[in-house]
């Protein structure tokens, strides 16, 4: 579904600031390797969040002394997460209804 990647990223970042690689790892880990967001969709999606003002990016030190860009959820991003989550629940509910009806 379009927009799902953004929703997942927002949810992951809600736990705290993270860099791109960390986000990908976290997603993979939490979803038991079911959800693997490729780099070619992860980074464009992060740029979309930046442009929309839902996350902020700042440089910080990573675990092995190389600087990394950390993404942090903004207040607007938190609001967006709630809204998108609701929408997503509705959608899933609706899909489930259709599936169970048959």
């Amino acid at each position, binding site marked *: 579904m379009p927009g799902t990647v953004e929703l997942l990223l927002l949810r992951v970042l809600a736990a705290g600031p993270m860099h791109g690689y960390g986000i990908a790892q976290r997603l993979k880990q939490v979803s038991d390797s079911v959800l693997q967001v490729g780099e070619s969709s992860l*980074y464009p999606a*992060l740029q979309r969040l930046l442009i929309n003002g839902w996350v902020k990016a700042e440089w910080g030190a990573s675990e092995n002394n190389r600087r990394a*860009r950390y993404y942090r959820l903004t207040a607007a991003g938190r609001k967006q997460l709630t809204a998108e989550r609701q929408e997503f629940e509705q959608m899933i509910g609706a899909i489930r209804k259709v599936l169970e009806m048959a």
Partner: protein
Amino acid sequence: MFYVVGRTWRKILFWVRRDRLNQELAEELELHCYLKGKVDREARKTPEETRREMGNLTLAKEESRDVWGFVSLDNLLRDIRYALRAFRRNPAFASIAIFSLALGIAGNTAIFSIIDTLLIKPLPFREPDRLVRITQLYPKALLEYFQQRSQTMDIAFVSPGSEFNLTGVGPASRITGSEISANFFTVIGASVERGRTFESGEDRPGNDGLIILSHELWRAKFNGDPAIIGRTITLNGIDRRVIGVMPASFSFPSTTVQFWIPARIDPRNTVEYWGGEFVPLIARLRPGANIQQARAEIHSLAAGVWKLFPWPMPRRWNADSTVISLQSDLAGDTRTRLFILLGAVGVVLIIACANVASLLLARATARRKEMAMRAALGAGIARIVRQLLTESVVLALVAGLIGVVLGVISLSLFRAVVPAQIPGMAEVGLDWRVCLFAAALSIFTGLSFGIVPALKAGKLDLAEAVKSGSQRSATKTWIALRTWLIAGEIALTVVLVVAAGLLMKSLYDLTTANPGFNSQRILTVKISPNESFCAQRESCIAFYSRIIADTRALGGVVDAAIANTVPLDGQLPAIPADVEDHPRTADFPSPMLWTGAVTPNYFRLMQIPLISGRAFTDTDGPNASPVILISASTARRFWRGVNPIGKHIKKTGETSWRTVIGVVADVRQFDLANHSPGSISGAIYMPYAQAGIEANAQLPAVMDLLVKTTATAEEVPAELHRLAVNANPNIPVGKVMSLTDIVGNSISGFRSTIWVFLSFASAALLLAAIGVYGLMSYAVSQRTYEISVRMAIGASRKSVVVLILSQSLRIAMIGIGAGTAAAFLLSRLFSGMLVGVTSADPLIFAGVTVLVLFVTVTASTVPVCRAVRIDPIRTLRAE
């Protein structure tokens, strides 16, 4: 909303920092690879596998950049660069197109900047959109009548300005001032630079010895004296105390006005209160009121005012009075003239657009292969159309830039169309509104002439175009489209040139018309003593007699006379009169007669012929029985079929009648076109010595000295001025002017309008010639093969000439036909500007047809020569 703004702002921020962002993204991805590689090595994956899992990193970068929104902007910049490169490659095309458009945009910018100043830019007063004018003119009594009754407006009174003598400050001089009601400055919403404005009650007799100076007068006559407030100055022999100086930016009701004095509003002086100078009323809408309400109010108030006068007035006098915005009142009838010019210059721009569209079509044909190649390589139709539109808009913007510069330069020519005394006209020039207009116009024209060729190019048949790409394969419809464009262009040109021709004919008729007098070798100079100077009738007559005698004694002078006015100098000395056989009633009130007061030799000097009876002689002195001369049209109006000699006329209010002793030919007193204001019913002359015959009547004091000189009398003007000044140094003497110049000045506005119009028509003609040339050159190159075949099978050169010329003549004939019909219909629109020519003048129409045909043929000459010089053998071999 907030969200959109924030997002746009971030987009701009990202775009500005895109280089750094790109670098940062690269670094981020590199870190990602590093970390992933480390984990994978631990998991014993091969680098090969890692790379496969990573997917397309370049794509990740590309798509990230897409999100930042650079792509469309980058594409636009690339398109613009490409367009500029394309123009450099084809300078002939680019320069013709840019020249055409710049010409059109220049004219539009210039006319628009005048319209902007006159009609769009808010007047420099407080809340200018609340200011209105009550149309028609009213006496002071009705100002108070309206003031007491109006619920919607605060009304003030402001005379257009008249000349006063300023004495005691350097040599005696004439300055122009306006009489106003005390509330004028409050109503118009302007404040003084120093001092104060008039207070309520200061327009009443006894309190009115005050004056407010314009900044310019204060600087020029009083050297910007900082202690000016409270100083007393003498105007027309009366002392007035200076109470204020207006800022330099303030000018009203016209730029000629140099000071403001209180109108003397005195209800006890019935004649002055009801019958003094009738002046314009201006007003400010009260809060909450709108112009419709004000209009309704004035309609009901003005309907009955004719009954209020203490003497009979024409039935329903001023009943059609209404309320208009002050801005449109100031613009007056210049408005129509400007809109006609804007229409004309708009047509020039359309012609320029048609030219460029036609050129672009030709270029699109030549670039079919290029476009097909782009399409084949994957460019979408939208992308190609956008590329072509970018090119035409860039073209138009370059032209716009040049056009604005040209427009501002040519503004001095165009400015003359508008009377210089309209406040604010001095500031005509480039401002943001004009720039915005020019930019919008450029983009709009760029899109409009670019859209058809661009869409045409977008619709091409790929396979066909890539395969052939030959010049010969251009489809017929493209040429047909260009033919119609050029024919339309010629039609519009014909309309403009016909209009210009009609206006030129008008101007010619005006300048060659017999104004009723001979202005050759006549000099005039205004001598303006105070009115009180003529309190003693004899001394006044003696003063002027001496001046005439002294003037006659000058070398180079043939004759000299004095008169209260000079024809065509813009003055209108009219008085109400009683005419024998025409008793006065409410439906036939006193006719207003133009009244000359002249010395007997005036008619000989001006060569105004006597038609019947006798002229004035020196014996018609102050004590002889009063006599009068009337003009031929006045005689016809009042005594048709009856001998007017021996009939009587008197000024309304006089007791003794004046006897008509002769009829003189008509003179165009008011304007060369022989219109006179509707209120004037005729013209009479009285001998100067008899101009005021009643016991308390004065002779007019301000007079023009008219001097007929010999052919070689260059030093006369200077001597004349010296003589008049020496006669009495306390009396201001005006500039010596030739009557020929005065006559010329009377139509200067009309003349400059015509010159501007003519320049537009010439531009149109030039553009049409370029258009025909472009089309015919293209047609010849398209038909090279056909012509070669024809020549190869024996066609003569003559028949080739006929072939090509007939094509261009056909286009010209279509254009001329359509244009003539349109011109015929449209010329009625400005028939009001035409004088002495009917809008269907056959000579003009025939002349324009010949001219346009000539231009078409001339423009086709080069292409025809090229066609004749085609070498069939070489062409056919090349195919």
